[in-house]
């Protein structure tokens, strides 16, 4: 069987869809391509279906919360969603990252590309409160259905109560898990 030679994913994607690529960075030989969240499905389809790339396996989807750090050029929004892809044919990994704003974190679902994204995305809906547009079953996955808040957000207290002072009483009340009934 003839295997087409491997091509550089960064160059290929910059040529094919330059408007989608926002930034590229490399750390410890791991390449991260920061893309426009609205174009994530097209980017994934391109990476999976192009000869010479064939990122056919979705290893992981994880979300990062950059609170309380101020936004920088590196991390322009509060939330980041990192997709870890793997190409079995060329034996290499790639990270695709999209940054989402605090007020309205929405990103299209990639279930049409990989069915396995279903639960990975549901976990993020549950834990981070990021909305995956078009997700067929956006219920909570790990936490109980009537749970308030999203535990993996950095402003969610870890077991202990945050001390309330007059200047932050409202800010903290917002995230306290009060009983609903």
């Amino acid at each position, binding site marked *: 069987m003839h295997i087409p030679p491997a091509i550089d994913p960064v160059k290929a994607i910059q040529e094919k869809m330059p408007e989608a690529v926002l930034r590229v960075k490399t750390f410890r030989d791991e390449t991260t391509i920061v893309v426009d969240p609205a174009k994530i499905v097209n980017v994934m389809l391109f990476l999976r279906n192009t000869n010479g790339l064939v990122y056919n396996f979705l290893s992981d989807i*994880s979300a990062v919360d950059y609170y309380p750090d101020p936004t920088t050029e590196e991390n322009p929004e509060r939330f980041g969603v990192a997709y870890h892809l793997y190409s079995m044919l060329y034996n290499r990994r790639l990270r695709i990252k999209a940054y989402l704003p605090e007020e309205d974190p929405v990103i299209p679902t990639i279930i049409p590309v990989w069915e396995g994204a279903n639960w990975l995305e549901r976990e993020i809906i549950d834990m981070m409160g990021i909305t995956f547009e078009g997700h067929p079953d956006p*219920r909570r996955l790990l936490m109980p259905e009537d749970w308030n808040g999203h535990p993996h957000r*950095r402003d969610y207290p*870890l077991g202990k109560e945050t001390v309330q002072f007059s200047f932050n009483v409202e800010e903290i009340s917002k995230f306290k898990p009060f009983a609903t009934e």
Partner: protein
Amino acid sequence: MAVNPNELATKATWEGNLEQLRGLVSERAMTGETMLLNMGPHHPSTHGVLRLLLELDGEEIVTILPDIGFLHTGIEKNIEDKNYEKGVPLTDRMDYLSPMSNNMAFCLAVEKLVDLDVPERAQIIRVICLELSRIASHMVWLGTQALDMGAMSVFLYCFREREYVLRLFEMVSGQRMMGSYIRPGGVWRDIPDGFIEEVTQFVNYFPAKVDDYETLLVNNPIWKDRTFGVGILEPELALSLGVSGASLRGSGVNWDIRKATPYSGYETYNFDIPLGEHGDVYDRFMCRLGELRESIKIINQALKRLTKKGEFRSKNRKFTFPMRSELGQSMEAVIHHFKLWTYGFDAPNEEVYASVESPRGEIGCYIHGTGGNKPRRVHFKTPSFMHIQAIPAMAEGHMIADLVAIIGSVDIVLGDCDR
């Protein structure tokens, strides 16, 4: 338009009226034509606290809705509040049948994040421990799968062998299960005297036992009837669902992280990867059974390399603590000891992903540092999570008795799934 997941979550609960299940189960369940049956979370064949809501047409399964999260302990969130080294004991508790693999995934990610080298001897000890834990974990898998399908005696034999391995773990780490033996930069301590002899004794004892299991099961007509053509997972579907490990290799996809992207010196060992053909329960069973022999092969090669003494932990004192014996003689050692156990070490504000081949499949660890001594985010991609998601694809259309065989064949651990 953004959907508020909170609103949907409160509407779609499984308690109360059937209306809430509309869209999740078939329309026939609404009229009562098919039966809804709750399996678990206390059912012994679900290997933990997995709850499956089954829609049954007679004995045939129409839909499966897995419900997980009963064992969610917030391990990822807890590690965010700890130094990097202190996160290791928490990772033990995820996949409690092979704690060493979890340690390994976490340590590889930390080592990558801070660019820390691991001495050769530590890598060899790690390989021995990882392969021993693969054997221990496969023993539980084989025993419970056989037990689920009515072969009681195999369970007892398997747990006898597992006990042997756990004694070896106790010898090396002080604990039978949650050893936290693999640490960033190497291992906790050097192997004790007599460990090599004990492991040698085990690898001489074990292959005959694998022969016994083969005699009991491989050509057993009842076993074949229960497993042939049951729970077939096509390779394309398996890849799309993110299935990994022996469950993926049972479908004929040759992907083993130990071969593809080797870690801890796996590229220097000589071993084969058993592959299945049809992707049914029997092929997955044969793959895992073959892995037992390959693990023995790897341990044998690793034992030969252990004869040379050397460092078992990195000498980089900015990341790994000094030996106890140095504390009485060196002021610097005391400072390093104090600093590392109180503050830990800083890691850059960057992200890394490391993955290992656990007995179940790919365990991936994603760490995002803050620049300080605590991580911003730790996320584990765990094989059981993906495999439980794939169970409906394998079991729908089969009889309810086959479901038990299918759950056993993908080898799930609920602690691994819920984290």
